[in-house]
């Protein structure tokens, strides 16, 4: 086979013109690295956070808004609130029609262990959820387990810490059974979760999509019982004025503030669950609520990412820019190849004169192009890794998990480099193969 010989020739030829070779490989590597960095970040930002069940975990949204006015209009279509009222949350939790269901609200409070003083307390943010939440979103436990159904209903003072908080307060020991103060409430630790960074994070809505999860979990009812609402930080909206500022008024109002998630046994049960929701809305309508047209919907995780605009348009602009940049790099490389192959005119003429066909010449230069592509791809991969490090520094506010290339992306990088450089090498190869033997031999 001549292929091996051609690769040897290609290698020699690269070494003969080091500056030109470095320029070629370098430009390809630059373009590939830019494209892969932006693609990695975009793909990771828009990835599926719960691939094994994203089609059967749903965000429930009810048409509970004001009779006079749509909640929001987007492109002329009415949008319904992404959150539920306390009444509806409690009713749906009571019915428990799904396999698992959980409310999700954030709040914040000062937290300290029993041995710490008031001064050492830290302001931390909480996930206020039901006990089904952990199984629904595949939260891994290091120690302990979620609280019981009874504790869930009663809103017992129980808490689950994340690994980091457990390391800080209990030096990483199994702290189940110990206590921490949440504000002035003493709460017993029932579990510690292992490292867990769902990306994007869907359950608190788009505002927290690219944050790491809040460090602590307490029963939703515990938050309500103790009026631990962070109204200056959580999302809440009302369409009717609140009479007074008491918790009772707020809970009985039509204000929406709770995100509600349900997991079904199979995606095919979606219709049944929707029938149940519609029946529930009808029932409430007869009770004088839900005055608007019933637009209630359930969105599975994939749909809710789109509905809530978690995927930023800006990411795609970056990918397009990088792709255009790659094209500019490849054009540059193509020009350099033309130069390079032109310089080898005499060699080609000689080979043609002693009987090589055009195909042979094309093959020889094709091998050289592939070699440049492979080298460019590997250098590009190295540059992309370096670039992702820099990107992780620049985008320090995003979780580092976004900046890691998966194996398919690594393979794609090299393949893309080889394919694109070969494609852009076709023209220079064609030109080289067209060399007339006679013209070159004359001047030798």
């Amino acid at each position, binding site marked *: 086979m001549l292929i091996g010989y051609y690769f040897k020739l290609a290698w020699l030829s690269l070494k003969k013109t080091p500056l*030109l070779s470095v*320029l070629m490989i370098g*430009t390809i590597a*630059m373009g590939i690295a*830019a494209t892969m960095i932006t693609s990695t970040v975009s793909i990771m930002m828009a990835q599926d956070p719960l691939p094994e069940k994203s089609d059967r975990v749903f965000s429930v949204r009810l048409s509970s808004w004001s009779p*006079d*006015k749509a909640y929001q209009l987007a492109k002329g279509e009415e949008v319904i609130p992404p959150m539920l009222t306390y009444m509806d949350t409690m009713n749906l939790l009571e019915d428990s029609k799904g396999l698992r269901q959980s409310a999700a609200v954030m709040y*914040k*409070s*000062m937290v300290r262990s029993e041995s710490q003083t*008031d*001064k050492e*307390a830290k*302001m931390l943010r909480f996930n206020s959820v039901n006990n089904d939440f952990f199984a629904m979103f595949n939260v891994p436990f290091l120690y302990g387990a979620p609280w019981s159904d009874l504790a869930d209903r009663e809103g017992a003072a129980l808490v689950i810490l994340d690994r980091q908080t457990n390391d800080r307060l209990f030096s990483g020991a199994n702290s189940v059974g110990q206590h921490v103060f949440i*504000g*002035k409430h003493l709460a017993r630790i029932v579990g510690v979760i292992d490292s867990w960074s769902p990306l994007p994070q869907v359950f608190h809505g788009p505002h927290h999509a690219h944050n790491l999860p809040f460090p602590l979990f307490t029963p939703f009812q515990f938050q309500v019982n103790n*009026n631990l*609402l*962070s*109204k*200056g*930080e959580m999302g809440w909206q009302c369409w009717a*004025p*609140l*009479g*007074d*500022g*008491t918790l009772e*008024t*707020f809970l009985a109002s039509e204000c929406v503030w709770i995100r509600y998630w349900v997991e079904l046994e199979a995606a095919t049960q979606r219709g049944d669950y929707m029938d149940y929701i519609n029946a529930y809305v009808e029932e409430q309508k007869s009770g004088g609520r839900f005055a608007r047209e019933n637009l209630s919907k359930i969105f599975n995780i994939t749909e809710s990412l789109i509905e809530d605009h978690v995927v930023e*348009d*800006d990411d*795609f*602009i*970056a990918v397009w*820019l*990088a792709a*255009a*940049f790659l*094209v*500019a*790099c490849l*054009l*540059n490389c*193509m*020009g*350099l190849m*033309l*130069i390079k192959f*032109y*310089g080898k005119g005499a060699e080609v003429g000689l080979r043609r004169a002693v009987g090589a066909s055009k195909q042979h010449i094309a093959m020889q230069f094709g091998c050289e192009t592939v070699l440049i592509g492979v080298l460019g791809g590997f250098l590009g991969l190295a540059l992309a890794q370096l670039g992702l490090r820099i*990107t992780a520094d*620049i*985008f*320090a*506010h*995003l979780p580092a998990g976004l900046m890691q290339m998966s194996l398919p992306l690594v393979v794609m990088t090299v393949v893309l480099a080889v394919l694109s450089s070969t494609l852009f090498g076709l*023209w220079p190869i064609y*030109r080289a193969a067209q060399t007339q033997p006679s013209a070159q031999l004359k*001047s030798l």
Partner: protein
Amino acid sequence: MNDLKPILNTLWRAKSAPLLLILQIAVTFTILVNAVYLIIQKEALLIEPSGLDEDVIFTFQTNVQSSEPEEMIALVKQDLRDIRSLSSVENVTVMNAFPLSDWGSYALTGLGPTDEDMNIYTGYYTGDEHAIDTMGLELIAGEAPTEGEVQDSIDFSANVTQAIVSKGFAERFYPDDWRAILGTTVYLNYEPYIVKGVVKELKSVWPGWYSHANTVLVPLRHISNNYKVLVRARAGDLELAKLQVVELLMKTPGRHLDKVMDYQQMREDKFKSETAAIKTLYWVIVGLVLLTLLGIFGQARFTIVKRRKQIGTRRALGASRGDILRYCMTENAIVTFIGIVLGVICALLANVQLVNHFDMAPVPVIYLLQVAGVILIVGQLAVCQPAWMAARVSPALATRSV
């Protein structure tokens, strides 16, 4: 200029290499224009004034050590009095949110109570009688609320009947004479409010929002278990004021303090992703300019190596070094120019796509011209060395066989 015809002829006869360069310049130009434009748009967002005297203000959130409404109000008022009496503090106010904070409220607004009238959303702020002074807003019409007009409220529950509006808001409803809004009634969430004053500038919490310049400030002392305070330090005492306020508040048992931040920190926090995007775009631009330099440089060297014999002949026939230099520079300028023309077309097409898909404003023509100028200069710089090489070709070369 008598070089023009031979140059064009030459380009026409050996198209492939210059054509590649033209394409490369066109693509580069397209990216550059759109990247520069993105940067300028994002930077405008970063430096947009909020209307506040940002260099002397810091904010924090804290809790009330009680859950009885009466007692809560008394405690908050006491906190405010204590803070105001500090030597480094000029003024202090309690608000529901402030420009650039992460969280805010809006209200549906109109000149009448019916659905047809209520057609825009407006940024909604609450503040006490010290809010305007603390923020350093310029009251350009009407008057600020007095102490007696401010109501205390737990979680927005109160019945207020007056408001201060931003000039942007006034112009939105009274485009011909914004002063006409004084004393009229506007409706916020279907409730009537009498406009008592107009401030020159007070932006909403959401930069880039369509209604960003339209805000109302309602005389309420908004109290919750996580109420937000804005402190105006005396000039030059910002850091001292922060220290003193934190020290003072932490004397209270059970006190929580959160997000003690001055405006510089808030800006950094708010615009992290924009700042990161801008940095990335700068990298893109640097990379592109380098690439163009290299590309033009490589091409020029190549053509000159190819033509050494011709150049020698021209020199032998009496062309001066200057002539050769000029020829090379002109040739490069022509290629770059064609590339730019093509680039303008591509850039406009690409921008139309951006406008359609990403809701961006179209690129102003001035940018196209500026970027074109930059690329021309870069091209001329890149061609300097090869052109100089060409000019140094000895006339004797023409007499040799190779």
